[in-house]
């Protein structure tokens, strides 16, 4: 196969790991089917990654994806024709697959590897551990490719021009918000629209603010509904979000526009002239929706959504999302593929092509394609707490339903306690 980076050529890659892996695995003639969420550009990047796997092992990899991958994987596993390896971004769905016995445990060795090699390793192990069909918890998934969500995007030149500083604390961020208003500008662009998934960007806000106002344990309890949704802690976080989103002066177009503006369109306000807003909270993927030719790091940049100075005990929490690989059919090739993911090269190849973050400490940071990526990688590595997107951890009916709807109602005018109570009711209904 065509390898994007010639082995041995660029020193930033850990070629040794590739050679080692190659030596340990000879599976010539076997095939491996991988079902993943990546399509379009992402797919090309991923193909470049597994090309190394094929090169090393001789396994022929067949990758496929689908617009309805959620539905597809359910159908395929139920019908008994699953792929060998599935990569999915939804822990909730994975939990379900595990509980129905469609997944193969990855074993203690992998668990230990994660603990040792991933930053905030315990967080990752917890995330990837699910109850199997037999009721015993085990590691079923391997986190690979992470998105950081605790990012605020801005245009440095606009900041410079207006004389604004990147805030280091949440208090500063709030002060900056008010200052922009005082200067006659609009601070935020917030768009929750996403067709059938409208509302999800707000859940990221709430989760981020939850991590900044509550302990990670509370967060965990929240996503497992061990504390009710209408617990004061949660209501508080929702109201924090409301402070930003429900103030007509703070958001472009006023609070009414928030729910209906498409999330893909909303960052464009940053680049308008005059600027429609100065700040935009969104995950690391958003630059693909910036106007063509925008150079991240120059024309646009981001900063870490800061924690409250008043709550130092919470450290630097990072909210993220990501994809997890799992074995849906236990073959030597699929085992080998998981092993492959443990090599630095599997991470570095993608890092070097952009839009890939990893908490893997063994991967060379220098491999990141550009400054901003590296900076995000550092945010990830510097995090004291990493928490996966809560709405993805909740049952689908809540995390991809009631929570979204609730947030829309919330920006539409409903009060936080009412909204939270409604969501809790929905949660009760599915128990």
């Amino acid at each position, binding site marked *: 196969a065509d390898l994007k980076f010639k082995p041995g050529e660029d020193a930033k890659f850990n070629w040794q790991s590739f050679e080692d892996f190659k030596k340990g695995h000879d599976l010539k003639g076997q095939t491996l089917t991988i079902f993943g969420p990546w399509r379009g550009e992402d797919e090309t990047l991923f193909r470049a990654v597994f090309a190394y796997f094929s090169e090393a092992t001789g396994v022929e990899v067949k990758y496929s994806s689908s617009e309805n991958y959620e539905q597809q994987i359910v159908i395929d596993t139920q019908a008994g024709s699953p792929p060998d390896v599935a990569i999915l971004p939804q822990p909730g769905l994975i939990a379900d697959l595990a509980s129905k016995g469609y997944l193969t445990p990855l074993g203690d060795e992998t668990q230990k590897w994660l603990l040792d090699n991933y930053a905030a390793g315990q967080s990752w192990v917890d995330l990837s551990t699910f109850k199997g069909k037999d009721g015993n918890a085990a590691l079923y998934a391997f986190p690979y490719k992470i998105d950081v969500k605790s990012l605020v995007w801005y245009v440095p030149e606009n900041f410079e*021009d207006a004389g604004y500083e990147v805030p280091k604390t949440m208090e500063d961020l709030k002060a900056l918000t008010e200052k922009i208003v005082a200067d006659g500008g609009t601070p935020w662009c917030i768009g929750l629209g996403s067709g059938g998934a409208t509302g999800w960007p707000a859940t990221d806000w709430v989760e981020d603010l939850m991590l900044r106002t509550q302990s990670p344990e509370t967060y965990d309890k929240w996503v497992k509904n061990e504390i009710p949704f209408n617990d004061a802690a949660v209501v508080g976080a929702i109201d924090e979000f409301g402070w930003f989103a429900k103030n007509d002066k703070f958001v472009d177009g006023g609070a009414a526009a928030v729910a209906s503006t498409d999330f893909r369109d909303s960052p464009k306000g940053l680049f308008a002239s005059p600027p429609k807003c100065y700040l935009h909270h969104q995950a690391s993927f958003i630059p693909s929706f910036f106007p063509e030719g925008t150079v991240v790091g120059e024309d646009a940049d981001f900063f870490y959504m800061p924690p409250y100075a008043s709550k130092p005990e919470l450290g630097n929490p990072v909210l993220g999302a990501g994809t997890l690989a799992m074995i849906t059919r236990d073959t030597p090739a699929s085992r080998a593929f998981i092993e492959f993911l443990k090599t630095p090269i599997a991470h570095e190849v993608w890092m070097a092509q952009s839009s890939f973050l990893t908490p893997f400490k063994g991967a060379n940071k220098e491999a990141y394609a550009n400054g901003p990526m590296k900076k995000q990688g550092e945010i990830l590595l510097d995090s004291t707490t990493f928490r996966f997107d809560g709405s993805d951890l909740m049952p689908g009916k809540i995390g991809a339903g009631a929570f979204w709807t609730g947030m829309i109602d919330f920006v539409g005018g409903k009060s936080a306690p009412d909204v939270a109570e409604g969501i809790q009711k929905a949660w009760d209904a599915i128990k």
Partner: protein
Amino acid sequence: MIATSRSPLIIVVHLSVLLLVALWTLPTAGLLISSLRDKDQLAVSGWWTALSTSSQNLTGRAASPDAQVEKDGKFVITGNLIEGGTSKVSAFGVRPMQPTAFEVGTTADIGDGQTLTVNEDGSYEIVSPTRMEGTRGQRIFYTASVPPRFTLDNYREVLNAEGIGASFINSLTVAIPATIIPILVAAFCAYALAWMPFPGRAILIAVIVGLLVVPLQMSLIPLLKLYNGVGAFFGVPAKTYVGIWLAHMGFGLPLAVYLLRNYMAGLPREIMESARVDGASDFDIFVKIILPLSFPALASFAIFQFLWTWNDLLVAMVFLGTGNNELVLTGRLVNLLGSRGGNWEILTASAFITIIVPLIVFFSLQRYLVRGLLAGSVKGG
């Protein structure tokens, strides 16, 4: 044809059809125009404005200080904000909050003793008494009247995508037999239900109506299980073209049988009787009389069945697989969209590329929806 003068009524007809057509095509026209625009404009102005010259606030960037030349002791950067366009600049500024601070053609003081002049044609000149520093050029905000601008890039991108040709063939391989086979099967069944007496006919018709409602999604898992079972038993792959044809046939049959039966039941009884007296068997009657006379219904159904199979993604994904070799056109295009489905410009272009084949089918089959097929056959009520 009935002799008619240009009565006012026919004008009303023309106008109302025009109105309906306009209503129906307006959204699509929007999509078509959008597919020809570039993606940044999509989100900021309505598609209908794409046809007119619009005044827009734009941001440009002067060449980087590397490009400065020394002239008369001053450092000068020149260039043009508008590459190859015919836009006209009317005002400019250097601060984002005041993008229209200066009239075009005037010289603006931009601090540090530097001055900036922007002309109507977009050419600019930065003059500085000292050597300019930095790696990035000065941002220039300007207001320009932009003439309509269209691009075929979106189409180019879609058409150049890898494997699109193979997917096209895959789609045809799925759609053509998946259109013809169910029509044949359904036509025979419809004839039996319409003209061959046997016990339980009415019930059977009702059951078929009832089956129209079975949600596709319900069937996928049991069917795929079955396919896997059959595949394993015979040692053949579970996901084959035959499998997907049959699946499309199964899902399309209720409607086909229902539509065709209804049509066939309306054919004049005397024709069938006359053929029967001529010694024709049911099979002869079906093939030689019913089929030719049912052309309008067959053609209508063919159009729909082709449409569905052509535009289908779900069934193809499940029964044909998602690998590169078997990916159908819709699947290929959806994959182009990227993981977050944001690339509207590709969506718009691909929507128009996929629409072409069904429209050809529609156009070529439309002439079978003919008038007076039965004319001259019988007399009476």
